[in-house]
């Protein structure tokens, strides 16, 4: 019973602090503190609800149990992280985004291809590409190569569409100015159109971070060596060891946020001139 009251108290306290903080003038500190307090409150309520209603740990393990499991199985988590994120997701991300970028620059020279590929690319970007996973696992084997292949296929089209759109983002006036400078095609590309395309390119890169992780993890459901986050999740679910599953999810959440945050940070330094970054 006391757990339930503790949960209620945590809820009221957290919400109270947040209401108080949000009504104060917005600063950098409150901008970080408010969501942080909200998250901590949720975790506290979660712990209290699980303990208070004595929910079976098989269904929903309390955060404390997950934290213990996380701390005690760091070696397994690290091994899975290397297998899935470094080998699978990251290599696929680099290959996929890189090739999409190069092809987009090539397409850009041919308006015909552009008009043909953009609708098709937009269409493909909306398809459930993840379904390619079993096929690619069949082609490239169980190890990380097939995961990287799935990631390449998943990130390729969003990246392509965004880059092509970005390269069209300059207006006539700017391109005419380059022409009056007698700028050659590579000069226009490097000095005007690629910098102008950066917000779009980073948009594609940011979308691709999540897709890459999802692709690498889900592809492991279709077959993988005995390590990897997707493998661990599907087997530990089978053994009903949900604390381990949650520990993997924590890893996935940290990696996903860090990956996204890293790209966003890079965007901030590269496209410092864009209105959305100055605001």
């Amino acid at each position, binding site marked *: 019973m006391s757990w339930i009251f503790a949960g209620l108290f945590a809820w009221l306290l957290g919400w109270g602090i947040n209401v108080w903080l949000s009504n104060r003038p917005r600063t950098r500190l409150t*901008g970080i503190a408010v969501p942080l307090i909200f998250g901590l409150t949720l975790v506290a309520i979660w712990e209290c609800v699980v303990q208070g209603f004595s929910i079976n740990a098989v*269904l929903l393990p309390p955060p404390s149990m997950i934290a213990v499991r996380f701390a005690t199985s760091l070696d397994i988590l690290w091994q899975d992280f290397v297998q899935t994120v470094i080998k699978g997701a990251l290599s696929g991300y680099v290959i996929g985004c890189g090739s999409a970028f190069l092809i987009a620059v090539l397409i850009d020279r041919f308006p*015909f291809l552009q008009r043909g590929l953009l609708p098709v690319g937009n269409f493909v970007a909306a398809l459930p590409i993840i379904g390619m996973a079993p*096929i690619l696992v069949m082609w490239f084997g169980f190890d990380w190569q097939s995961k990287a292949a799935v990631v390449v296929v998943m990130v390729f089209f969003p990246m392509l569409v965004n880059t092509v759109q970005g390269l069209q983002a300059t207006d006539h006036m700017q391109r005419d100015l380059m022409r009056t400078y007698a700028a050659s095609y590579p000069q226009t590309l490097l000095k005007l159109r690629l910098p102008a395309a950066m917000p779009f390119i980073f948009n594609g890169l940011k979308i691709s971070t999540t897709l890459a992780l999802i692709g690498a993890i*889900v592809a492991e459901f279709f077959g993988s060596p005995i390590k990897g986050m997707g493998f661990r999740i599907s087997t530990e679910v089978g053994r009903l060891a*949900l604390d381990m599953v949650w520990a993997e999810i924590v890893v996935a959440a940290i990696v996903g946020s860090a990956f996204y945050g890293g790209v966003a940070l890079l965007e901030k330094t590269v496209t410092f001139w864009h209105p959305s970054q100055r605001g």
Partner: protein
Amino acid sequence: MMRSLFPVLTVVIGIFVLWYAGSVALNTPWALDKAKRAGLELTTAEIIADTMNQQKPKLPPPHQVGQEIWKTTGAMVVRGKAFSKRSLIYHSWITLSSTLQGFVLGTLLGISLAVGIVYNRTMDRSIMPWVIASQTIPILAIAPMIIVVLNAIGISGLVPKAVISMYLSFFPVVVGMVKGLRSPDHMQLDQMKTWNASAGQQFWKLRLPSSMPYLFTSLKIAMAASLVGAIVGELPTGAVAGLGARLLGGSYYGQTIQIWSALLTAAALAAALVGIIGLIQTRVLKRMGMAR
């Protein structure tokens, strides 16, 4: 529209040509292997003919996939067994129903969160960062867990899959609707104030209508995401029913043609669903005088 028809057709034809070339290239080793064991020498024409008609090709050529799709949809309908367990219509229906359920739930959740975020400062400051963070988490990875846990407390069938679809589809709706509900500018909001409009009137007559273009754009993304969620949600249930189950079953037994036909059906489903929303969008926006 007509201007881009020809380029699009060219690209589509190009894809088919590449597909055929790819299936010849990928299936040739198996054809040669078979011939070697039978002690035969194959000419190039014979090799190509063989790659077009293998039982379990590495990459089935389009016509084989097309035949399989017809066999499991159209032909089933003709024989009056449209909803037998072997028919893709049955599996598509399973996937479609959980997709739609998740989509509706996700949209409702998304819109209500967006309203809360727009009208409540505390919610805006505390929830919005988490909504964005929630999408950097590869949620699909925990699909199996959601299914198992909900199963353990006695919820099975459509709902667990719909929950996954919901999680995937609420995000675009929240982001789009927050943007849309905030799209009326100061002048318009001031106008409402001079008319002494209540908060409710301001919401129903100004904010909601002006958010419609944003809503439809995000609904399209949400629908596509919802379908992905439903398909992935079917994987851990042990390949019972649905397009995801067909994918998994195909990959267990090496039935590549089955995988490709399920994949293409899923693609067609996605295209149809997004297309329908697009049609509704044009209709509604035209009626509201907002069509561009």
